[in-house]
């Protein structure tokens, strides 16, 4: 390991020569010297210092994991990808953990392609299938893609950038289905094309974010049944499947920090997660899936879950639902398991919520300030409303024993970077930015939204907790806890650049007369401020869920012949 070696300034010609050697493929045996490098994961550059040394490209492990949307587990000096294979060499310098980017690519199911100081990590196609009127294309890493239509015959195709096929591709056909054929091909050296030949002209709707591990295209209304019974293609098209999945087993495992459900199916599954804020129920829906055999009985022993069960919906397209009743705010995430046909649903105590919830450092960030007024309307400047709510919340939080830090306590302009830099200045547990919204049409939209970054489970739990408290206490229209990927492919600045669980609250719409009237009412602002603190406290474990049923609420089956 060269972890103690200082970075040499580029004063001699050696770094240049070594870079040239590396370009020529002879860099594997080069002596320890360092040149800057770049790492791209499916076309998106990995942030932070990346460099080439000893024939390896090193990148910050956290940045790699973030760009790839996967979890890295440290193991001594190495790393492992959760649910993946192989170990990844690691090193530490100046408190930053670096990982061998090429080894990371292999462990994450990607394909490293190096050219000099540039390492491109390409994705593979893991699965393609059409079910429930939707085309699912799963890749080993998040990819960018575009969707197009062609006629003669009618087909919709998806081009996946920076993706390669292992084999030559292939085709599966089903003359009875809405999608007659699925074709998979390497259209260009780094572009995979998935073409769905349809029975006629079907409208399509893109249902996945612009960068996604699983691309989802709705190809028809829900009354079109799934393609089923299609013959398997040649061996090279083993990734192309259609029809109903069989869920072979669902197992519950409990640990000190949470529980996990291990679901094994006869092929890759991509369940959708949802929850009911009123009851504390979380569930996973497996579209086009049937449970094999009898549903297992779950008897959770720990303090996190009070009950859990499986529900099979059989009407129309079958759907299997796994329901978990929680006793407190939990962070949930779906991760890969052992092999492509297994997923693991984790429900855990969120980050920073262990132990005594008091004395935690919470940064409250009143949005905008100074020349930056934020949204304007109905005689209000957003910056002023944000500051009032933040001050009231700080007062309430301190009364409850929290250590509250405000990014600004007066009407001053602060860069977004200055706000998130404050996180590392304190032993910060949570970061909450307070805003109010506006849109292009006054008096159109109203209500409360709370954003979290991408799919971060801890931040999502925080956003949900705050959202639920504001809606319940202040009576605003619920617009939900939302991923900031709904706004931008990169998310929101303060959330993206927060190193602790973070949420951005949009209390109401300043250019909606109803919301604006409430935002002018001091009593309303005080209620909102208390609700924000209650959300934070419930995240930290200081409040239990208020309206929890003794048993999981019965979920109405949509079809006949259901067994529960």
């Amino acid at each position, binding site marked *: 390991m060269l972890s103690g070696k200082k970075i040499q300034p580029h004063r001699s010609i050696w770094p240049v020569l070594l870079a040239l050697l590396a370009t020529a493929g002879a860099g594997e045996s080069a002596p320890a010297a360092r040149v800057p490098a770049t790492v791209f994961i499916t076309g998106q550059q990995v942030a932070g210092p990346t460099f080439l040394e000893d024939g390896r490209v090193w990148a910050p492990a956290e940045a790699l994991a973030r760009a790839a949307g996967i979890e890295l587990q440290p193991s001594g000096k190495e790393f492992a990808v959760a649910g993946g294979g192989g170990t990844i060499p690691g090193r530490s310098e100046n408190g930053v953990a670096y990982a061998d980017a090429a080894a990371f690519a292999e462990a994450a199911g990607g394909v490293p392609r190096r050219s000099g100081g540039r390492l491109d990590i390409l994705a593979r196609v893991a699965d393609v299938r059409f079910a429930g009127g939707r085309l699912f294309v799963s890749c080993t890493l998040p990819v960018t893609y575009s969707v197009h239509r062609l006629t003669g015959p009618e087909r919709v195709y998806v081009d996946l950038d920076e993706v390669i096929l292992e084999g030559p591709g292939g085709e599966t056909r089903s003359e009875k289905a809405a999608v007659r054929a699925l074709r998979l091909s390497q259209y260009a050296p780094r572009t995979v094309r998935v073409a769905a030949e349809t029975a006629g002209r079907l409208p399509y*709707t893109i249902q996945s974010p612009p960068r996604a591990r699983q691309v989802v295209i709705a190809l028809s209304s829900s009354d079109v049944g799934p393609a089923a019974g299609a013959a398997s293609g040649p061996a090279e098209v083993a990734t192309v499947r259609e029809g109903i999945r069989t869920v072979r087993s669902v197992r519950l495992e409990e640990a000190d920090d949470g529980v996990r459900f291990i679901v094994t199916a006869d092929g890759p599954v991509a369940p959708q997660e949802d929850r009911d804020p009123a009851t504390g129920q979380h569930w996973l829906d497996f579209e086009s899936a049937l449970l094999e055999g009898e549903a297992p009985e779950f008897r959770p022993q720990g303090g996190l879950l009070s009950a859990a069960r499986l529900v099979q919906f059989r009407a129309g397209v079958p759907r299997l639902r796994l329901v978990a009743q929680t006793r407190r705010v939990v962070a949930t995430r779906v991760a890969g398991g052992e092999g492509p046909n297994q997923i693991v649903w984790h429900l855990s105590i969120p980050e920073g919520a262990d132990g005594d919830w008091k004395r935690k450092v919470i940064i409250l960030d009143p949005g*905008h300030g100074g020349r930056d007024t934020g*949204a304007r309307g109905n005689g209000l400047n957003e910056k002023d409303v944000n500051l009032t709510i933040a001050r009231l919340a700080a007062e309430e939080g301190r009364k409850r024993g929290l250590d509250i830090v405000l990014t600004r306590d007066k009407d001053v302009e602060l860069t977004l970077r200055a706000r998130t830099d404050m996180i590392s200045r304190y032993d910060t547990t949570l970061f909450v930015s307070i805003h109010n919204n506006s849109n292009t049409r006054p008096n159109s939209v109203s209500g409360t939204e709370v954003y979290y970054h991408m799919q971060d489970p801890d931040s999502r739990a925080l956003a949900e907790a705050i959202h639920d408290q504001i809606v319940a206490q202040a009576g605003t229209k619920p617009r939900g806890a939302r991923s900031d990927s709904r706004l931008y492919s990169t998310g929101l600045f303060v959330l993206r650049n927060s190193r602790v669980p973070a949420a951005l609250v949009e209390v109401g719409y300043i250019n909606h007369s109803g919301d604006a009237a409430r935002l002018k009412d001091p009593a309303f602002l005080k209620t909102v401020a208390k609700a924000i603190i209650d959300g934070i406290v419930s995240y930290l474990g200081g409040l239990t869920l208020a309206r929890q049923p003794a048993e999981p609420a019965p979920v109405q089956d949509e079809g006949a012949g259901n067994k529960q």
Partner: protein
Amino acid sequence: MMLHRRFRLLVFLAAAALAGGCAAPRPQRAPETPGGGIPAPEKPAAEARVTIFVPVLVNDEMRLERRSVAVTSARPGPKEALEALLDYRIAGQRMFPEGARVLDFSVDKDGVAVVDLSPEIQEYSGGSMEEAGALNALVMTAAQYDGVKSVRFLCDGKEMETLGGHADLTVPLVPDRRLLVEQN
């Protein structure tokens, strides 16, 4: 002697122009009708139009809708389309600050379009949904041109941190086609 040489050069340039080597536009011939009939009367050149994407609300959510707008440029490209968007008004209100312009537009080898905006853009203010509508409209308008996979914004040649205090503009934005009202 010098005067004589200049005269010869002028004569040469004039002859070259008459021979068709000049870049000046020539009058368009009226299209001939099939079968060699009477030619259609000559019409003025059609008004140049560009496609832009503008934010609309659908079920209380921000979406993008295609619009065709007239521009003065004879051969409009991405810069003209983006400027048309910067000038666009929704219900009589400008989306972007008065005077905001595109100083430069380029696309690098990785498909990142770099849009350099004039300093007036710093006067922008709005809520997160409003800002998302404005930025996604710029991104989608830029991304309709060949080779553009993502869009990076600069202000007067320098990195922009944000537009309205929410978005992160230190990294390129990828067009989100889920936002399109008409995807097919």
